């Protein structure tokens, strides 16, 4: 399933400074594995050693937060757009 991937901020560094590129996978989890094969170190930007996504990483499938879909098991179809954004947060 070819999908368009968009990444922001520092995550662009591990994908050769690209903002957008094409990859594939049947699910979000598989997509992350495939991107990690091509760009080693990609997965550790998003998840811990057990594969659990960081609390502060946001992944959107066509503008829907995957936390409200099926998380890493969310299925992908041709032409989907997956966006990966580190949170922007702070506090007093």
């Amino acid at each position, binding site marked *: 399933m070819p999908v368009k991937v*968009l990444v*922001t*901020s*520092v*995550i662009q*560094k591990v994908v050769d400074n690209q*903002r957008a590129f094409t990859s594939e996978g049947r699910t979000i989890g598989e997509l992350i594995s495939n991107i990690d094969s091509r760009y080693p170190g990609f997965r550790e*930007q998003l998840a811990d050693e057990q594969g659990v996504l*960081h609390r*502060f990483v*946001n992944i*959107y499938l066509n*503008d829907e*937060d995957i936390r409200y879909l099926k998380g890493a098991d969310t299925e992908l179809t041709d032409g989907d757009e997956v*966006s990966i*954004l*580190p*949170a*922007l*947060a*702070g*506090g*007093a």
Partner: protein
Amino acid sequence: MPRIPSSVIEAMVSHAHQDLPNEACGMVHARDGVAFEAIRVKNDAASPFRYEMNPLQMLKLDRRREDEGESLFAIYHSHVASEAYPSPTDVRMAFWPPGEIDNEPMFPETYYVLVSLKYDPPAVRAFHIRMGGVIEEEPIEVVD
């Protein structure tokens, strides 16, 4: 030195007031390096002590910058009762993964602007957060 139009400063201060009692947050966009607009982003944390920018709005602003040739000049947020100075949480969250201060910061070229409502008139100050968690103030020049 960050040159910021008075209209942008006023927009950030006005946003900070309107979102009381919670912290307000947003982005300042630039065109050809010149700051021209403060854009409000929803604080999903809805807290007087924390902010977390709504990711979908962040995504839409990222697309806008790409489409319109704009850049991210500053990330701003308010402190409702503390100084206009990055807190330890602000510094930790300027790195990815959070707290990895020996990495390059997430937005090395972008100013972090703090609006403090502790004072009247409010204090507005700009900073760079550097590798190692070093905070460097960048005095704002207000322009028309």
